[in-house]
């Protein structure tokens, strides 16, 4: 039976022979064991500690509420009294709430991951199923030299067309794109009709830069003025024309705060990502 991995095969319960396999197995199984322990705590409210020594003499440990508490209790063989006092109870409740939050988030992300994986499979399958007569749709490993060169030429031509189409979107009416502030000026990207777009999309800057590198058409190139970008290249302040400079700083912070959910585990900047 040919299988991708040893997953659904039986393995002997003896020390593994292959050094590399042993290391990989250790890594995976240790992680799995911790995951099981974590789930047991969440589902059943148990307290647990798992200590694992690695083949390389390192130690991994997992504990809920934490390793020390559970070990100490075990070593002292104290009678098992939980809820010693109100403070402890309160701490426990707080901790559980945080953990629950995290678990919910994890569930959400895991579901997303599975969706994307499924989509991945579907897309790959579709490509397999789509048997077309065009030789250039096949994998390039099967091309001979002539075909490679031919397809490359074709693609380069095609790219020119795409570039030309793309540059149509870059119709800025000769104005340069200003970062930086002045209380009298209007800010933002001018759209095709010359109107100000004060709803500055955070993604626009990156898109412009990409367009510049992508398009060979230098006349249309937009050059952001580097010295007047207070927050670096990756960020655009949302300027509203009626605000003065000091207010702009405040506007930005406000925007940041409102856009980020209050999640203690997320640094705010992770919300402002480009796809």
């Amino acid at each position, binding site marked *: 039976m040919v299988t991708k991995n040893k997953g659904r095969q039986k393995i002997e319960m003896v020390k593994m022979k292959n050094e590399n396999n042993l290391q990989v197995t250790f890594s995976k199984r240790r992680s799995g064991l911790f995951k099981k322990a974590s789930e047991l705590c969440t589902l059943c409210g148990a307290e647990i500690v798992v200590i694992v020594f690695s083949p390389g003499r390192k130690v991994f440990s997992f504990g809920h509420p934490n390793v020390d508490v559970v070990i100490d209790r075990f070593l002292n063989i104290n009678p098992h009294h939980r809820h010693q006092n109100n403070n402890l109870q309160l701490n426990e409740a707080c901790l559980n709430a945080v953990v629950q939050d995290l678990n919910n988030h994890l569930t959400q992300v895991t579901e997303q991951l599975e969706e994307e994986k499924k989509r991945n499979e579907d897309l790959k399958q*579709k490509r397999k199923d789509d048997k077309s007569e065009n030789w250039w749709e096949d994998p390039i490993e099967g091309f001979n030299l002539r075909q490679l060169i031919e397809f490359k030429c074709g693609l380069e031509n095609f790219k020119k067309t795409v570039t030309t189409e793309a540059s149509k979107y870059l119709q800025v009416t000769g104005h340069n794109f200003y970062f930086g502030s002045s209380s009298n000026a209007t800010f933002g990207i001018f759209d095709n009709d010359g109107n100000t777009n004060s709803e500055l999309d955070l993604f626009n800057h990156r898109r412009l830069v990409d367009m510049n590198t992508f398009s060979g058409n230098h006349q249309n190139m937009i050059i952001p003025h580097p010295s007047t970008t207070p927050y670096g290249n990756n960020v655009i302040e949302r300027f509203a024309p009626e605000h003065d400079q000091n207010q702009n700083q405040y506007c930005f912070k406000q925007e940041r705060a409102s856009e980020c959910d209050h999640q203690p585990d997320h640094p705010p900047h992770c919300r402002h990502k480009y796809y």
Partner: protein
Amino acid sequence: MTRNRVKMAYIENETSRKATFRKRKGGIMKKALELSTLCDVPIAVIVQSEYNSVPEVFPPSRQAMGNVVARWDSLPLVDKTKKMMNQEQFIQQRITKATESCKKVAKENKELAMKEVMYDCLRGDTAPCDLGEDELRDLGGVIDQYIKGLNRRIQVLMRDHASSSTSVVPDADVATSVAMPTAEMGSSSNVKDFDLNQTQSE
């Protein structure tokens, strides 16, 4: 194997919770034994629950357990805490890993989808003018990637040609015989122009 996905939250139902505890605790002990045997490493597990006043442990023998705990105790604090985690940290780590994975797969999906768009255009089913700004940009990226791949293959084949003394690179022939679809702006490309005569392998 999974009949219904269990929600990762405290089980309110007493009976369910007790049953789950029993099963999962057993599972953990089994996994601990397997890991310990397969990789020949010391492991200790201590489980404290509402169902038993005495903690349930692995390894089951007092001495074995004592050995592992003693070994743990003797470690300097630095070593202990380096890879120590509680629920919060562990789950956060899992979230981070899952998010990274997700981004990676999503990116690949995007590329795969764009590749389809590229083929659509080359076939003449779509035209670049039908595409939006973002799609055009991504399409450009995919085309670039593809061209890079082609270049790499060309180099490989050139190398092979060069090393084998008999064959000659037919560059003159190729330049004149190229008849690839050129997608005209505003109209879909006429792919019937595509020269399919170049399919014979060398």
